[in-house]
């Protein structure tokens, strides 16, 4: 119809230039970053630093998992520690009691966690907002109680100790030889890629539409209950994956490792970085794992400051530190461009 000449997107500003820079050079930068991370264990860091890197990896996975539910689908889950726990216990029990190969326990644990996500989800998805949140919170507490009391299976409050580290072609993984670091790096890449592929598909768009306006989403033919369930299942699956990795890394598990504080820490990470963005999860996990390590001297004030940060964030930057909306144009693939060109409807600026 009409022709509009005004600038469609604000393209000025440093941030835009940074985005554009990364966008254009992503084919070089991503492999470069990957190689850099591959080289970390060779940089002569001590065990402690490698452990921090590895724990950051675990929490990146947990945050990415939460992000699918809370960030994209807009359903705040306060019980993700439960799925993390289910993953950890399942993997451990399969390994120790079931004699299952370690490399199989990881996917199996994740599947069971995902299944529990579905179990939690089915009866509760007609609940909205705050109600759903409180149910997830209650679920987290119930799971913890079960882990604490089901002595014959979970060994109760004693937890399970001496979980053996896995072998990889004859090499026993440890923090010192960087084995756990590489494994978590692999899992982070896997979960990031899966998360990226899901988010950038009709599934991810359905998630976001539920977050933005559930009624309007239904009017687009989106089965919101099904997609909410899917988001929960995926979130539980990835959290379970993180749990299955965690157990043999630390060598013991008990119910105290999966408290409400863990759930609330994952939430804080996602929020600090920026819910609904993937970059934010990496950032949030890194900062909130490193912060307590470098701030031990603050003692009790540490958690006061932690609270102050959350409050200030919500007040002044609720979208998270890295939660800006990207301004670089949507990328059309070559085929789409040629199709558009053929039909003569290629939008301006392309």
């Amino acid at each position, binding site marked *: 119809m009409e022709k*509009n000449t005004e600038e469609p997107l604000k393209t000025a500003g440093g941030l835009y230039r940074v985005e554009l820079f990364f966008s254009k050079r992503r084919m070089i930068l991503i492999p470069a970053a990957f190689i850099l991370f591959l080289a970390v264990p060779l940089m002569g860091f001590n065990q402690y630093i490698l452990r921090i890197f590895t724990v950051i990896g675990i929490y990146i996975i947990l945050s990415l998992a939460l992000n699918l539910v809370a960030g994209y689908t807009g359903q705040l889950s306060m019980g993700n520690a439960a799925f993390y726990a289910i993953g950890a216990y399942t993997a451990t029990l399969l390994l120790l009691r079931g004699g299952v190969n370690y490399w199989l326990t990881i996917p199996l644990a994740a599947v069971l966690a995902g299944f529990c996500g579905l179990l939690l989800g089915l009866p509760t998805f007609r609940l909205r907002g705050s109600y759903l949140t409180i149910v997830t919170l209650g679920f987290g507490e119930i799971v913890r109680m079960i882990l604490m009391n089901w002595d014959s299976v979970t060994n109760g409050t004693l937890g399970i100790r001496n979980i053996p580290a896995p072998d990889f072609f004859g090499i026993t993984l440890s923090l010192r030889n960087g084995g756990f670091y590489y494994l978590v790096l692999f899992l982070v890449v896997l979960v990031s890629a899966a998360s990226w592929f899901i988010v950038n*598909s009709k599934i991810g768009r359905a998630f976001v539409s539920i977050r933005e306006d559930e009624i*309007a989403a239904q009017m687009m033919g989106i089965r919101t209950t099904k997609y909410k369930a899917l988001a929960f299942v995926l979130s539980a699956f990835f959290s379970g994956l993180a749990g299955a990795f965690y157990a043999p890394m630390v060598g013991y598990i008990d119910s105290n490792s999966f408290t409400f504080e863990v759930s609330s820490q994952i939430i804080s990470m996602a929020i600090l970085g920026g819910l609904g963005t993937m970059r934010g999860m990496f950032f949030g996990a890194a900062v909130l794992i490193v912060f307590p390590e470098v701030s031990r001297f603050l003692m009790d004030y540490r958690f006061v400051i932690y609270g102050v940060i959350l409050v200030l964030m919500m007040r002044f930057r609720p979208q998270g530190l890295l939660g800006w909306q990207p301004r670089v144009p949507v990328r059309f693939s070559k085929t789409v461009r040629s199709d558009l060109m053929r039909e003569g409807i290629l939008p301006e600026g392309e």
Partner: protein
Amino acid sequence: MALLEINNVSLSFGGLKAVDDVSLYVNKGEIVSLIGPNGAGKTTMFNILTGIYKIDHGGILFDGYPIQNKIPQDIVKAGISRTFQNIRLFRNIRVIENVLVGCHITIKYNFFDALFRTPKYRRAERQNMVRAVRLLYDVGLSHRVHDYASNLPYGEQRKLEIARALATGAKLILLDEPAAGMNPQESAELLRFILGLRGRGYTILMIEHDMSVVMNISDRIYVLDYGKLISQGLPQEVANDPKVIEAYLGGIQNVEN
């Protein structure tokens, strides 16, 4: 046979009859308007048609099949799509993504196709991306493709909602006050656009207050007041119906009181 047939539909909210024994029909290729004073039950009618509210009595046939009390998703699939009176866009995503969400049911691939980026995924994404751009081009938003929905001015948000509704592949489009908040030039343009839709085979049922729009493009008009159908017919007939004038003037008097 009519594309949409509503027979004796009633719905009450705790004693209050919001829709009272309403029957109407829309033929294929028609533009039909639903008018009436505020609170007459027009939007409630839309909510019934799209499955948000369940009715107490009556029946609704679309394309010959009963659709009353079906869930919204099934109704969209059957071919009815709508816009909202108080625009309900997905505000924090891009314009093109809004339309792609609208394409949801026309995109045929499953979870694993997405996860593994199968050729099926690529093909469907490519086709629908082109389709989405085409729809934006059609409604005059091709310059806004990359922008965020919340950044659009009011008029363009309305257009985007229409584009999103069209994206579902529906045959019958329900427009809830599409001209609200538009200046005369914009409404004139909207009018041409709606006529264009009919030209492309869409059927339209709309709620509208802007009488210049209603009178100019409607094939037929239904008038609701207090949940009851008080008049129907060609634009000229309805405009001269004393009951309609009464309903509107009464409404005005009420406001003044």
